[in-house]
C-alpha cells in the first residue's frame, strides 16, 4: 500500500488533527466525535450548515469547513457514514436559535445515521432540517435505487448554502437554495484506477491496465460499464453528453463547469480534460461564467475525474462568487 499512514485505524483522526493544526484559531477539533468546526460558530445570528459522510473524499467535506462554507463536519471512517452519535453531537455542538441545516449525500448509511440523529435532536427541541444531495447521473436508471448518488456537485450546494448562511439567510431560505442548486447540478465520473482504504490495505476493486470504469461512484461503486481506456477527448465527450443531456442544459444557459480530480490525477491532466469540456460547452451554446478545475471530491488516491455542470441564476451565481476561507487554500 503506497500511502503516507501510521496506524490505519488512526488515519482519519490524524488527518483531522492535521487540519486543526493547519487552522489554529480558525477551526476547532472535537476528537471524540471527529468534529471539525468553526471557532466562531454556532452564532445566534446564523443558521449552522453542517455535513458528515465517509472520509476519503477530501477536501469534501471536512476541509471545506470555514467562513462562507460549512460551519462543521463530522466525517466517519474512510468510506463509512459517521456513527449516529457523531451526527447527533455535531448537531448539538452547532445548535443555533436560527436552526441547523444538515447537507447529506444520498447514501443509505449517511441518511440513516443522520435521520436517527435528527430525530433525537428534535426530541431535544433543536430546530434542525436536512437536505439530500443526489447529482450523479451515472446510476439514474437502476430502477430500485434509493436514488442518485451524491458526488462532486455537493461542492456547489455547500458553497451556496454557506454563503447564504453567512449573510443571515433563514433555515427555510437555505433549504430553498439547496433545493435549487441540487435541482440544477449534474455530475458523472470516470475511474482509471482503483483505490485502497488504509484499513483495508487492498484496492477496493480490480481494473485492467487498459480499462476504465465509466460512471464510477466516489466509493468505487461500479458505474455504467467497464470499458477500454479511450483518449481524453472521447472520455470527456461521453460524460459531457451524459451530464448535459440529463437536465437538460440548453443553449444560452449560464453555467458553472467543474472538472474534479478523484485524487490521483494531477492538475496537468485535469486541464487537458477541461479544454475539451469547455469546447463542448461552447459547442452547446452554454455560457461558462465560472469554472472549477482541481480536487473537490476525491476517492482517496484514485486516478480519475468527474465532470459537473451547474445551471446558474443570478442568486446562485452571486452566492458562488461570495468569498470563503476554508482549510484547503492555495495561499
Amino acid at each position, binding site marked *: 500500500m503506497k500511502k503516507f499512514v501510521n496506524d490505519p485505524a488512526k488515519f482519519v483522526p490524524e488527518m483531522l488533527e492535521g487540519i486543526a493544526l493547519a487552522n489554529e484559531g480558525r477551526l476547532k477539533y472535537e476528537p471524540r466525535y471527529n468534529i471539525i468546526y468553526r471557532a466562531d460558530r454556532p452564532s445566534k445570528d446564523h443558521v449552522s450548515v453542517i455535513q458528515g459522510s*465517509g472520509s476519503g473524499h477530501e477536501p469534501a467535506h471536512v476541509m471545506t469547513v470555514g467562513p462562507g462554507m460549512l460551519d462543521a463536519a463530522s466525517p466517519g471512517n474512510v468510506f463509512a457514514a*459517521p*456513527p449516529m*452519535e457523531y451526527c447527533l453531537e455535531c448537531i448539538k455542538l452547532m445548535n443555533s436559535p436560527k436552526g441547523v441545516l444538515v447537507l447529506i449525500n444520498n447514501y443509505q448509511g449517511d441518511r440513516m445515521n443522520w435521520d*436517527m440523529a435528527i430525530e433525537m435532536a428534535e426530541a431535544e427541541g433543536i430546530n434542525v432540517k436536512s437536505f439530500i444531495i443526489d447529482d450523479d447521473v451515472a446510476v439514474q436508471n437502476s430502477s430500485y*435505487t434509493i436514488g442518485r448518488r451524491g458526488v462532486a456537485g455537493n461542492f456547489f450546494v455547500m458553497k451556496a448554502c454557506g454563503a447564504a448562511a453567512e449573510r443571515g439567510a433563514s433555515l427555510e431560505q437555505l433549504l430553498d437554495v439547496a433545493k435549487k442548486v441540487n435541482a440544477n447540478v449534474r455530475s458523472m465520473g470516470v475511474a482509471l484506477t482503483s483505490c485502497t482504504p488504509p484499513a*483495508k490495505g487492498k484496492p477496493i476493486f480490480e481494473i485492467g491496465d487498459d480499462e476504465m470504469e465509466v460512471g464510477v461512484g466516489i466509493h468505487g*461503486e461500479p458505474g455504467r460499464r467497464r470499458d477500454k481506456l479511450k483518449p481524453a477527448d472521447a472520455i470527456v465527450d461521453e460524460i459531457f453528453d451524459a451530464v448535459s443531456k440529463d437536465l437538460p442544459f440548453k443553449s444560452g444557459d449560464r453555467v458553472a463547469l467543474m472538472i474534479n480530480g478523484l485524487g490521483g490525477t494531477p492538475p496537468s491532466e485535469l486541464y487537458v480534460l477541461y479544454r475539451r469540456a469547455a469546447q463542448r460547452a461552447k459547442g452547446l451554446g452554454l455560457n461558462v461564467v465560472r469554472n472549477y478545475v482541481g480536487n473537490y471530491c476525491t476517492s482517496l488516491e484514485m486516478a480519475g475525474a468527474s465532470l459537473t455542470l451547474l445551471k446558474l441564476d443570478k442568486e446562485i451565481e452571486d452566492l458562488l462568487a461570495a468569498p470563503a476561507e476554508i482549510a484547503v487554500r492555495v495561499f
Partner: protein
Amino acid sequence: MTEITLADVEAAVKTIAATALKNEQYFCELDSYAGDADFGVSLASGFRAVEQDWQALDRSSIGAFLLKISLIISKNVGGCSGPIWGTAFMRAGALSKDRTSITLEDLDKMLTAAIEGIQKRGGAQLGDKTLLDALIPIRDIVHDSAGKPGADARDVLKRATAAANEAIERTKNLVAKRGRQQFVGDRSIGTPDPGIVAIATMMNDLCAQFGVAKPAPNEN
C-alpha cells in the same frame, strides 16, 4: 424451558459479540464482492466496544441491558450497520424495559419490533437481500411456537438457525436492493449478502453456546 433469563440474554450478546470479532476479516471479504468491504470492520468496532464496556453495562433489566448495547453501537458503528443494529437493539430493549426474564411471546414481540424498526429506518422489504431475509424467518419460527404448550426455546433456536442458514442460499441469486450494494445492481447476483451471513453465523454460534446441536444443512 420457555423462560429466557437476563443471564441468557447476556450470554447471547456475549456470543454474537465474539462472532462479530472472530469474523471481522471474513465479513469484510463478503462485503467486498458487491459492497464497500467495511461491514466486518463496522460490526466489529461496535461489538469490540461492547466487550470493552462489558463489566460496566447496566444489568438492572433485560431492556436496560439491550438499550445500553444499542447506545454503544450508535456511538461506534457507522455505515448502514450502525442504524440497523442500533435500531434493532433499541426496539427490542424498549419492550423489555423492566423485565429480568422473558417468554417466547415476549421474544416474538421484541423481534417484530426490531424488524419493524429496521424497515422504518431503511425501507427494506423481505427479498431485498438484506439481513431482514434472515431475521424475518427467525421471527416467524419464534412466532409459531410462542405460547404453544411445551414449546422449548432450545428447539426454537435450533429451527431458527436452520432457517437463517437457508436464507443465505435462498437469497444468494437475488439482486441486492439496499445499502452500498444496491449500486452494483446485477453484479451482486450470486454473492451472499454479508448481513444475512452474519446473522446465520451468530445463530450457529448461539447453538454452540447453549449446547444445541447445530442443525444439519436444510434441516427444519
